[in-house]
């Protein structure tokens, strides 16, 4: 039975490396050294130029909400977390990724600025969680 907050059982070493870094609070993004493409999710070959010469680089952790929803009826194993505010965030580095936002459902909108909060990340919790970036 899957637990609530596992390190994903990734199938490739690169994906596993990614989640290990997340567990250590070192959230990274793939940056191709051959063609300069910055992409997510990570994979063995750059999806733009197919080079395997890419590096994980730390992200600033700031970004802007693109899409969002408040999940009221997730699957059984996440039922205790509801409502879950899930967002698709455009990182300031360019790529988008999905994370949760620790805020009230009504406090989020397209364009809301958020910042990654790495304080809760551990091998038991690799869910990227953002907080509202208030001016």
């Amino acid at each position, binding site marked *: 039975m899957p637990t609530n907050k596992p390190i994903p059982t990734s199938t490739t070493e690169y994906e596993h490396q990614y989640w290990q870094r997340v567990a250590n609070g070192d959230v990274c993004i793939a940056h191709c050294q051959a063609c300069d493409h910055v992409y997510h999710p990570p994979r063995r070959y750059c999806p733009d130029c197919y080079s395997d010469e890419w590096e994980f680089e730390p992200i600033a952790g700031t970004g802007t909400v693109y899409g969002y*929803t408040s999940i009221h009826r997730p699957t059984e194993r996440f039922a205790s977390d509801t409502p879950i505010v899930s967002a698709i965030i455009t990182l300031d580095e360019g790529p988008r990724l999905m994370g949760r936002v620790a805020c009230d459902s009504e406090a989020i909108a397209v364009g809301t600025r958020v910042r990654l909060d790495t304080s809760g990340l551990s091998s038991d919790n690799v869910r990227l969680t953002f907080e509202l970036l208030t001016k």
Partner: protein
Amino acid sequence: MDVFQHVLAPMISSNLLGDRYRMQLRPMKPVLIGYGETSVGESLNCRYEELNMWATREALRDVDLEPDDIDGLIATAPFRTERFPLPRLIEYLGIAPLNFAELTGVGGASHVTSIHRAAGAIENGQAETILVVAADALHSDIGPRTVIEELSDSVSEFEDPANIVPSLYAHVANWHLDTFGTTRKQLAEIAAIAHEHASLQRAERAHRQEAKSADEILDAPMVATPLTADQCALISDGGAAFIVTTEENAAELDQVPVRLTGFGARHTHDHISQMPSFNETGAIEAGQRAMAEATVDHADIDVLQIYDCFTITVLRILEDLGFCERGNGGDLVDSGALRLTGKWPLNTHGGALAQAHPGMPCGIFHITEALRQLQGRAEATQVDNASTALVHGNGGIFSTQAVAILERGECHAD
């Protein structure tokens, strides 16, 4: 020396090469002809193979064909993928041997794509009469809760696995609401139209047969904001089949032939977070290509069959197909144009929101409904003089898009 005139033509005329080669030297024009549907609902107590056979039986009976008349198959794998569903079905349906067999693979865009694949195989002379079938027992064999759990388990680890399919679409819904001022009620109105059209179907043809107002749809339990349960596809048992054959063969059959006059497809992403823009799906290019090939304009479309796994899917696609300006989907819904009496009657069977959603086979009902309309057999939801239908399919999370233009042909049979 002209090889055709001096060598091949005499052989053909003397039938030295047999019927088979004579057939293949002349390009065949494909048409859609018969169709069949199972009942739909929650407890048909049929397995995948049985439902596929049921749908096939109805399609064969519709045009008085025998299983042996089929020489090609396009089928859809069951929700729980078997290792080799295709040979299994070929044997089970009693249609072996076949010249052509394919399994679909672009989710809800599969069935619209299948029309094009079948037509191409007939034009190429690979097969003459192709069965396209899709059916599954999503509700009674697997169960709604399990379906939701298993679909959620398949969400990438790079997208929060707390997401279920509705919540992945909900990200785009909120984007549309925030960006254009679309209202939750306008979204709900799309489900109200679906429920009204489903309520007009025969009981065995609609999983849900009750009309509902937009307010009632908004009052349903919230799944993922802004999508309430009534704005999410049903989970049903059922399926359908249709037959694509040559124009020549169709002339012998007692149904109105329907021609595929335009087709387009466009596939863009897997993760919803990697969708290039929430303001554009591949349906833009797919639709433009299909309509250009068919040389039709929006005003020519009599019936709209848009894949409706969620209300936001319909809103997004209507804009992408150019039925209104970008951002004005809500106003189009409010205008009444999508109702039965409107300019572009939408999903006149009730769609995945209210008629049936048996998983992978969902999109095939949009096609059989288009055939019903174009053949003048749509009973209570018949659109007057329907001669051109646009059928759309969407798979994944706005990932795969396909659009077909279908037009009513001339009936040759007495």
